């Protein structure tokens, strides 16, 4: 099953709509609440990353009976040092974004903590692709 969501950079009012939509689907599929929670938290963080840092992006979600796979592909500044960006508290978010309560530097590490598989590919000046996989029969 495939779902696609389009995200506009800077559209903070709608940040979280993908996470909510995916959450509803997972509940309908009778997935374990603990796995739903992990997945939705990860998706929300990745969604907010696009809104906060990129110009625009597309989220592709693929679900089958065994796992959920979500790809977040954005056109944006890219991440120069992914290892550093994964550190808790490291943030490049602008002052304005932080004032809105986002950009505390917990995003990528939070995604990592809430996913079974995480891949990040980034090209500076072009954009970032984040791929999350979570299995329904917990690992």
């Amino acid at each position, binding site marked *: *099953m495939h779902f696609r969501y389009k995200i506009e950079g800077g559209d903070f009012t709608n*940040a*979280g709509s993908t*996470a*909510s939509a995916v*959450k*509803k*689907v997972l*509940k*309908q*599929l*009778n*997935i374990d*609440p*603990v796995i*739903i*929670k992990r997945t*939705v*938290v990860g998706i*929300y963080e990745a969604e907010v990353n696009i809104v906060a840092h990129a110009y625009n992006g597309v989220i592709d979600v693929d*679900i*089958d*009976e065994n796992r959920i796979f979500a790809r977040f592909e954005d056109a944006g500044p890219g991440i120069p040092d992914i290892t550093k960006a994964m550190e808790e508290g490291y943030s490049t978010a602008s002052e304005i974004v932080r004032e809105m309560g986002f950009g505390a530097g917990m995003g990528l590490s939070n995604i990592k903590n809430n996913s079974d598989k995480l891949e990040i590919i980034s090209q500076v000046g072009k954009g970032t692709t984040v791929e999350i996989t979570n299995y*329904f029969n917990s690992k």
Partner: protein
Amino acid sequence: MTKANQSGEIFHAIHFRADMCIGCSHCMNICPVEAIRVREGKARLIPNRCVDCGECYRVCPVGAIAVEQNDFEEIFRFPIRIALIPSVFFGQFPETISREEIVHSIMDLGFTHVHEVEEGAGFLNRLYIEYRKNNPNNRPLISPFCPAIVRLIEVKFPTLLDNIILLKNPMEITAMKARKDLTEKGYKDTEIGIFYVSPCAAKIVAIKSPVGEKDSSVSGVINLNYLYNKTFRLIRNLKKAHGPLPGPNFSSQEICWSLTHGETDLAESGRNLAIDDIKNVIEFLEKLENEEIKGIDFLELRACDESCAGGILCPANRFLTAEKMKKRVQNTLSEGKEEKKIEYTPEMEKFLRDHISLEKLTPRPILKLDDNVAEAVVKMKRMYELNGFLPQVDCGICGSPSCKALAEDIVQHTAELKQCIFIQKIMEQNEKLDIQESVNIMRKIWSESKLDKNSLRDEI
């Protein structure tokens, strides 16, 4: 765990009276958990979905929704008859009627004792504060007070179940204490009947089919509006002088426990939020579940606007009730009187503490399409496909509350695609459906009476 009856159905205090229902679908459209459908011209409840919030009761134009209660005469089966009155009850009456008059009238009706539910709230609040200290990593803690909200979380937000404080409510504490006091005086447990006067359907369900506790110490339920009518008539007819208040003259801030902010006003400092109205609660819990909202310590969540003052069985205006109750507290405090709290002996304290915990709550997911994930995926694909054919008007003519709900009903084999009036038109145009068949489909949903208007035939 929510108890089901022998046939596996969940108990509800709300009953749809088929003899009175006119099939208007107002209830179906308002239900926040899409638990109602219209078939054969009558509203039908899907028991496993309903959370007993009572929104349907509010909008029914013909009073076809009944709320279950015990027959009043049942109180006389017990030599000791205790009325457990929530503070909102006193807020229903005009200010010219005193609390003494109300209490004495309740006793004139046949009760031997009257207790105010909120007598137990101060004790509970102390335990809330301890609970918060003992569970520092569980945030936000969610109040277990409103049974409709506990049920809502069970069915719709199972990931938040562990956040609910596992303690009973003031009603159970007051009932347990009253029962214990009397058994110590030599009465047998079976001689004591405790009857709770309920402002809503959810509280009735909490007694008849408790969540997270084996049995309630309450023996039965009287609906608040029923007792209000009986009491009010008595007070007006028998304007005799009454003595002072029998039983504890309880008077402190906990009187407002069941109002919005009743719990947060007494909570220890931190980020404590009070949210009322089930739609607001659902909106908030959606965001909380995604962790879009963080850093909250305590949530007081109530299904009714203005909390229990807005209970479906409360006859008075909810804003005026809340105002009167707050005034009652203010008057006590401003007159320089001391707050009169309920005293607990160390033995009583220990007894209540031993009996106050709720068992772990279990999810009761209503959104699932199938127990089996693979099967659910198949159903979901079909559901999205079907939903693509539907007009997204959410008109409800199909007898389901929305296009998405119809798509779901179709994959669950409780509805057919051609129940959609738009699909019918397309089929008629393609000569796949003749007019008589489409009329028959509408008859099946809305009953013959709505389709066969013989007298209209000449007019239109």
